[in-house]
């Protein structure tokens, strides 16, 4: 292994970075102007001048009923187009480069709102319903991203998240059907941790390439769960009927319009995920464990010199991360879909990895990225129902296209832990 020690080569990068940032501002400026043109040409002039769009802001179960906003579709999109255009022009001036991502974010938000106004012209659209399903679909993605960053902060790439989620889902469904939710969750956690241990063992003990080990774990998980599903679940249907997980309504907070149904009326999985984000942030950046884990991921040799057991830290983090993935699998199977289907994860573990990169290996970044990916998924589902003439397949591509855009660095390059993916062999 050639472990390059990149000390002192950072200096010239600063100069180059300014120019890439400038180029990125230009690209994003052009993208924003194109978006403005689409909003004006398609969304504003694609509806009759007097069409009205209605966004519903309450669910039938809410305490405060029949909240909604109505507005003229064309006027709304026209204003949005002007705002996006102004943002684009501002980017082309190449000033305040640190606001580029914010400009892109606001521009995309306005674009999506104009799109929804167009799709809901002369009809109504449950905005709060979409935001609520955004939160629900973000949970697995966030948990996947947290799994990834817990491994990678310690220098182990985990491509096997997908397999951990899938196996966790399978075991959770079987155990929950037989013994109840608690057993299901416990089973999911255990199987996630076991696959984490397998990954760590292959990667650390046998120096198997970490990406290869992860991919093989995914294939193993698909094969094994499909095999067991068609051998056991197809015969014993009662094992594919997990106990219902009740929602816990948080008093008072759940009655707040919009925010309440979005965040405070969910199964315990969702609350645990939010708490986990906070706990991991605290753990990684405020505790001795976090400092050690990060040092192992950045410069294992230095950490070793200081007396940290590099391999032990890596084992502990990868196995601990497996618990998170197993929890995600249990949520997917018990609360989100409520049964096991072959290959039910459908690439969500990889979207989680993209969310980890997008979130710059930070727990709160993972949550924010998870919400954005969750939003694109929820948008795809809701718009497919609205019937806009856009083939639903194209809407379903959205989260995957968004993932490519994110990893292609349109939102700026992010730097992984320096020793990410490199086996460490004690000299």
């Amino acid at each position: 292994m050639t472990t390059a020690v990149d000390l002192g080569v950072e200096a010239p990068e600063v100069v180059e970075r300014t120019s890439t940032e400038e180029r990125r501002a230009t690209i994003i400026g052009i993208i924003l102007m194109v978006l403005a043109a689409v909003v004006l040409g398609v969304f504003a002039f694609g509806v009759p001048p007097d069409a009205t769009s209605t966004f519903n802001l309450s669910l039938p179960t809410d305490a405060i009923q029949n909240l909604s906003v109505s507005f003229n579709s064309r006027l709304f999109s026209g204003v949005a187009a002007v705002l996006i255009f102004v943002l684009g022009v501002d980017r082309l001036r190449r000033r305040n480069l640190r606001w580029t991502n914010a400009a892109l974010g606001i521009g995309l938000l306005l674009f999506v709102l104009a799109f929804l106004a167009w799709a809901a012209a002369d009809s109504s659209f449950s905005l709060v319903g979409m935001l609520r399903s955004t939160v629900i679909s973000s949970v697995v993605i966030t948990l996947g991203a947290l799994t990834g960053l817990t491994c990678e902060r310690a220098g182990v790439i985990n491509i096997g998240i997908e397999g951990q989620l899938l196996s966790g889902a399978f075991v959770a469904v079987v155990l929950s059907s037989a013994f109840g939710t608690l057993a299901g969750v416990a089973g999911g956690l255990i199987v996630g941790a076991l696959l984490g241990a397998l990954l760590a063992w292959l990667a650390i003990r046998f120096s198997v390439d970490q990406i290869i080990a992860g991919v093989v774990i995914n294939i193993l998980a698909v094969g094994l769960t499909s095999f067991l599903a068609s051998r056991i679940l197809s015969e014993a249907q009662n094992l594919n009927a997990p106990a219902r997980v009740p929602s816990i309504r948080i008093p008072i907070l759940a009655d707040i319009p919009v925010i309440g149904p979005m965040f405070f009326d969910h199964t315990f999985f969702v609350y645990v995920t939010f708490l986990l984000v906070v706990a991991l942030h605290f753990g990684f950046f405020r505790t001795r464990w976090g400092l050690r884990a990060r040092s192992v991921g950045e410069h294992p040799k230095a950490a070793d010199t200081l007396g940290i057991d590099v391999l032990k830290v890596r084992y502990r983090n990868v196995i601990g991360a497996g618990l998170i993935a197993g929890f995600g699998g249990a949520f997917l199977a018990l609360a989100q879909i409520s049964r096991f289907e072959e290959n039910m994860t459908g690439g969500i573990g990889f979207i989680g990895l993209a969310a980890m990169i997008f979130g710059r290996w930070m727990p709160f970044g993972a949550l924010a990225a998870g919400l954005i990916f969750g939003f694109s998924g929820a948008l795809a589902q809701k718009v497919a129902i609205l019937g806009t003439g856009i083939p639903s397949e194209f809407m379903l591509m959205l989260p995957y296209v968004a993932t490519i855009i994110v990893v292609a660095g349109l939102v700026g390059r992010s730097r992984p832990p320096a020793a990410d993916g490199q086996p460490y062999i004690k000299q």
Partner: protein
Amino acid sequence: MSEVKTPMASKSPPPERPSWMDRVTGVGTSVGRSLLLPTLALITALIIGGFIIALSDIDSLKLLFSEPATAISQMWNEVLAAYKALFQGSVGSINAISETLFAATPLLLAGLGIAVGFRAGLFNIGAQGQMLIGGLIATYVGLYLNLPAILHIPLTLAGGLAGGMLWGGFAGLLKAKTGAHEVITTIMLNFIALFFMQWVLTTSGIQDPGRNNPVSAALPESAQLPKLFGSQYRVTIGFLIAIAAVFVVQWLLYRSSIGFEFRAVGSNPEAGRYAGMNVAVVVTLAMAIAGGLAGIAGANQVMGLEPYKATPSLAGFVGFDAITVALLGRSNPIGVMWAAILFGALSAGGREMQGAAQVPIDLVVVLQALIVIFVAAPGLIRAIWRVKADDGETVTQVSTGWGS
């Protein structure tokens, strides 16, 4: 590919005391050594697979505590029946051999593509999507051209090649220009290709008239691959094309200058850059060629089997199995060929196993994953069997982090 010295290597027994296994198998010749590891990997995987079959047999499990002897003999018989069917279905008859080669054809083509990627230091998980787009373009060429078979077949295959190159090359271009890691982009492109197929196969001009699900019209006879052993056996000349591809890839990687650049950039991109190679071009081209080979595999799935129609599921699970094929073959074209034939045999036998012994074919996927785990971790096999098997070339090291 940096050679990874496993910690196990230093702990293996000293050479002057060969273990019992070495003496039994007469290990010592180089051929014996290079085959020993995959063979032991296969045997170990089959043993674990046997336990998986036995322990997932609900009827026997229920008896395990009341009548343990009956339960165990039932389990034993079931494992025996399953593996007998696996053997019969893969090499037990001419038809079985035809089925094995039939299943090996797309695995070999797509596996070669992944091997080319590995050699250039790229992990292409996108064979699935590349097969879909390749199959799609091949279907258009097959449906819209009206030529004699001698021209129509090569052109349709070329359509598959072009489609796959486009889809794979795009991931390569993204990697070269933005540093986007190909593992993530190729997986995302798989899903995009899948949704695209679900839509495009319902558009007029390609959809089978009178159907409302995504299915293309059937290719004309002039675009269908002829059968190799007569009409009663399914294997087509696609298998010969795949074998030809083995030698083309062998030449490309080890005899051509672009292949040298692939391998140079694959083992050390920085060194390649200093030697004056255009890493961006090499990466894009390597992914395009990898995708092109998968695209031919996709064309084969439309041109080479009844009812000669493209569907969104035409790639089946081949694109992922091809990864295990390339890993087992250690990214060496000849090795990939044997690996594809082995996995073709497992797949053909797996169908027989599902039909005759009611053991789901998904077991084959588990066996493949286990075989690759053991081949990728030679130390594990050495520890289990107490042999000093030759590592051969270490499996490609592809983890270079997410940065460019």
